């Protein structure tokens, strides 16, 4: 039996913190503790993601729950000597609230976490994801045990009662989906976990897989029992090597423990899970494309019906949910559907994980109850906009979503309200934009993404998004015409109505929502030949002001020799030669170069 430790040092081993250096910190702690003869009394644990990835590597010291940010190997000595031995908190490593700059020692007092309700993410950052015992210690597999004592119909009834809806984007009621698969004729059925997280900026599924893999397995096993499947597939993108490794480890542990495989927990129910690595095509997040990819065919969607519930993997009834959906199942089974349904709005129950990125202070993952407002997420949890800039818009729902303006900040978020506002829940990516963002350029960015990722099968998506992108390019290049806006709208309408799968059907959303809320920016580009945010280089010009001292640094920095001038005399930029790279402005020590 392992000796009980007096303190725990939790080091985040998620992808974010790993890449900022936590891989070195963990052995450094172990080495230091060993050198001080403390290996038995202080336990170092590599955990999954805490969500505040931008401030990583994160280290949390328990029992106090002190939250250290941006920890370096060189800080390890001090943490051991000062905190673990002398019991003093190290002020300089504490988290600071962006608004007040006040340091917050206690994890639970950090505003980023205070408004969150961690349900799917409950274990992430708190347990060792490679230890099944820790998962079980955190009430893991209790939901499965309870489910196996119920009839499959009752399990489905409980999921229906919870009101859980698909967290991957579609928002289809999970219980109903399970019911369809259960009702479908056939002895052989499959459960598929969609772990092909592909929205730019979204990483909640990765966090769950890396930080709490058993939770996903448990959700899938419960689903298998409920729908009558004996085999499951996790379709995980190969770009998530850590998630795949953790899943592989978890599957092996669960097999060894009899939680997977034959006759699970003596119930007579058997279930196995395979991992299929995807090659990173965005469209493979679409369920029929995903199925094609598992089958070894090119990942392209096919028209529905038949729905996978009736004819899915290898033509067999298959139930597909995404990672976050499955991650909610164990707790729903354990706590009952009513508890889950007690949170959220009328139509959207429970919590949702959002990935906060862009121009926001606290970049990271936040799990919040449905019905929360965008303002609470961005300002209370996210800590507002950095550098005193003004909020302009938030892009929600990934490339299929829309951009919502300031006047919608108090919108209570759920599936319906977002769709109504021209965005969508999607997988929960939130990209915050400030006044320096050009909305036409944003629309162009997302169109570029969907055009690149279009599978090419259907005409409207393949050809239509290309034409939309070309029009947006034209507008950003200062060559837009008055006809371009109605043309964009007409195309968008046809692409939405006519595309084969959701990728195409939602691809125009970023354009439509920016046209809806920021039409004036499009018009400014076309009519006034101006990019109000100063982003589109076609409208930019750099000029040297009277502050110039003639130091010549800008002249040296210019890659195209567009700047001329004698030493100690005011320099000038030749607008014909200037490529608007901004190198001169960055180099000027006297702030003598204006952009505009």
């Amino acid at each position: 039996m392992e000796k009980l430790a007096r303190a725990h040092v939790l080091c985040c081993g998620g992808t974010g913190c790993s890449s900022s250096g936590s891989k070195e910190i963990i052995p450094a702690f172990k080495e230091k503790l060993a050198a001080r003869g403390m290996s038995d009394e202080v336990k170092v644990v590599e955990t999954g993601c805490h969500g505040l990835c931008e401030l990583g590597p994160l280290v949390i010291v328990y029992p106090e729950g002190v939250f250290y940010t941006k920890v370096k190997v060189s800080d390890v000595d001090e943490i051991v000597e000062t905190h673990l031995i002398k019991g003093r908190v190290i002020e300089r490593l504490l988290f600071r609230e962006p608004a007040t700059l006040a340091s917050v020692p206690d994890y639970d007092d950090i505003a980023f976490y205070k408004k969150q309700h961690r349900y799917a993410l409950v274990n992430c950052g708190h347990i060792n994801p490679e230890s099944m015992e820790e998962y079980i210690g955190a009430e893991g597999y209790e939901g499965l045990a309870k489910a196996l004592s119920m009839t499959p119909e009752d399990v489905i009834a409980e999921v229906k009662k919870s009101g859980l809806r698909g967290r991957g984007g579609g928002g289809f009621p999970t219980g109903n989906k399970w019911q369809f698969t259960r009702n479908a004729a056939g002895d052989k059925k499959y459960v598929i976990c969609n772990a092909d997280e592909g929205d730019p900026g979204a990483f909640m599924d990765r966090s769950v897989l890396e930080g709490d893999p058993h939770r996903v397995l448990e959700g899938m096993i419960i689903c298998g029992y409920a729908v009558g499947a004996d085999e499951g597939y996790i379709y995980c993108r190969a770009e998530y090597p850590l998630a795949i490794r953790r899943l592989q480890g978890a599957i092996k542990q669960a097999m060894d423990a009899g939680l997977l495989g034959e006759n699970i927990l003596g119930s007579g129910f058997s279930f196995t899970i395979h991992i299929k690595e995807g090659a990173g095509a965005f469209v493979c997040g679409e369920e029929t494309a995903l199925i094609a990819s598992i089958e070894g065919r090119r990942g392209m969607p096919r028209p529905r019906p038949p729905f996978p519930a009736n004819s899915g993997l290898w033509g067999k009834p298959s139930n597909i949910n995404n990672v976050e959906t499955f991650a909610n199942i164990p707790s729903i089974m354990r706590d009952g559907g009513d508890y889950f349904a007690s949170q959220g709005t009328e139509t959207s129950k429970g919590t949702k994980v959002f990935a906060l990125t862009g121009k926001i202070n606290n970049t990271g993952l936040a799990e919040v109850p449905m019905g929360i407002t965008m303002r609470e997420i961005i300002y209370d949890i996210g800590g507002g906009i950095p550098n005193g800039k003004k909020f302009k818009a938030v892009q929600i729902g990934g490339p299929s979503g829309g951009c919502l303006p300031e006047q919608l900040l108090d919108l209570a978020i759920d599936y319906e309200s977002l769709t109504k506002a021209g965005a969508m829940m999607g997988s929960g990516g939130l990209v915050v934009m400030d006044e320096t963002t050009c909305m036409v350029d944003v629309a162009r960015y997302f169109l570029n993404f969907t055009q690149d990722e279009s599978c090419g099968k259907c005409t409207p998506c393949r050809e239509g998004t290309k034409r939309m992108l070309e029009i947006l390019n034209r507008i950003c290049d200062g060559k837009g015409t008055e006809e371009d806006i109605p043309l964009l709208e007409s195309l968008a309408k046809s692409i939405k109505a006519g595309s084969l799968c959701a990728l195409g059907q939602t691809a125009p959303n970023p354009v439509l929502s920016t046209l809806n809320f920021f039409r004036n920016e499009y018009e400014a580009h076309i009519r006034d030949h101006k990019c109000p945010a100063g982003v589109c280089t076609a409208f930019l010009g750099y000029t040297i002001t009277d502050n110039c001292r003639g130091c010549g640094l800008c002249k040296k920095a210019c890659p195209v020799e567009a700047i001329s001038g004698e030493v100690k005399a005011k320099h000038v930029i030749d607008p014909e030669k200037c490529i608007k790279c901004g190198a001169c402005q960055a180099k000027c020590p006297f702030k003598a170069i204006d952009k505009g």
Partner: protein
Amino acid sequence: MSSVSETTIKMTINGQDVTAPKSYTILQAARLIGLDIPHLCYHPELAREGNCRVCLVEVEGARSLVASCVYPVGEGMKVHTNSPSVMETRKTVVELMLANHPRDCLFCVKNQHCELQQIAADLGIRKVRFQGEKREAKKDESNPSIVRDPEKCILCTRCVRACSERQGLDIFSSVNRGFKSIVEPAFGLGLDEVACSYCGQCTTVCPTAALTEKDDTQLVWDAISDPDKFVVVQTAPSVRIGLGEEFGLKSGSIVTGKMVAALRRLGFDRVFDTDFAADQTIMEEAHELLHRIKTGGVLPMATSCSPGWINFVETMHPEFIPHLSTAKSPQGMFGATVKTYFAERAAIDPAKIVSVSVMPCTAKKWEAKRPQLCDSGFRDVDIVITTREFARMIKQVGLDFMNLPEEDFDSPMGISTGAAQIFGATGGVMEAALRTAYEKYTGKELENLDFIAVRGLDGIKEASVDMGGGVVIKVAVAHTLRNAEKLVQKTLAGEADYHFFEVMACPGGCLGGGGQPYPTDREIRQARIDAIYDADAHMKYRKSHENPAIIELYDTWMGQPLGERAHHLLHTHFTPWGERLK
């Protein structure tokens, strides 16, 4: 059509009540009320993909428009096929195709046969609102049979499906994403570098000019206009059955006499018939079969007249080569005979003869270029054109085809039998061979010439023929390479107890060949088949060995079937693809 017992549903289309079988799609149901919803990627004989989005319709309650070619009907369903949203979206979809399509319709080979052109015209598209990048890709003219012009491709994937579902070859697939998507052979290789059989079925389903036969008509014009050349032409059994469709006749109209008249008016010096050579083929093949049976040769023996099939064996199953009959195809036999026997008889320098053949087939263009086919001392067949190219030549010179007189082939290589006539249909070669083999083997006259069991459009047909004396010959017939593959596998596994089987690479046999007029579907093929057997039944001679011109050929010049001269001129050998590439 559905069987009477199938359950039906009631729905409305544009407010009109429709009762349709439950298994129908909306597109099929609409046809019940005389409404043909515009479509492009849909093909009645291929898997339904729903990718072009031209056949979009509105179903009340559905989140977006749906592709009627794949969407199943349902009880109480309310469909609108020409609501403003449908009309606008459909037009935009076609406009988007046109925006990425060369607008060279006036001088495109598919002008007036192009389904995209037709739909653009039907929908009344008068301008394309989108300018921008167009797909730039090189034409593939790597092979003698098929030209692939990716710039004209609309990615409907009919070729992908036809090649996969009919032939099992999967030469084409979709690659790349987004606007860079393209349908092409593996690694963008030329068709000469992949296991393409050159059957040309892809060209029969391609709605645009992305896949077409290689046009060799100018070579024919050049030969005809050269005063030093003596240009002879042979026409395959299936050409006379398909050609009329190019001039508005219904499928199954046989136009032999007018075809001959047209060829004369185009300027050919002699108009001969491949049917004559088909009788030669039977003479050789039937004797070869009997020889193999008697001497314990490799069995089952398989026919070798379909060049798509030959290509398939040489590329995919070189181990099967010993099973192939060494008899040349009728085209090959004709070529070798015309530059020897005919040249000698007519006292024409064979070096001056240009041997042209009109074939229902794109692979014949490739066959004529096989190094083996030079047994006359010259290239046995110089130019091959398809039925479609032949029709274009007739139109080029403005011949009023329908009012041409009926004329006869020139002799001697224009005389043929019903046995040769049925070569065009799947099972026809088998039946013709059996007529001769039976009489040659038994020495008795066949009472019933009709081997019904080998006729028709079933994928694989089997039959056995009692030759008397306890000898029963077991035969099989397959059309399309997907079916052929099954016979090959069975043979290679040692499970085929056949003596003889016939393979035609194209569905229905040559009458459904890759060079036949557009469109070809099951009903059209059946009409052509019916016409062929009807013609056979009315022929003066119905057995190849009774063809007087054939008798004379063998008696006076060729010698015995399988004899020395026949062996030299009428038989060939096959080369595994690997060696061919060297």
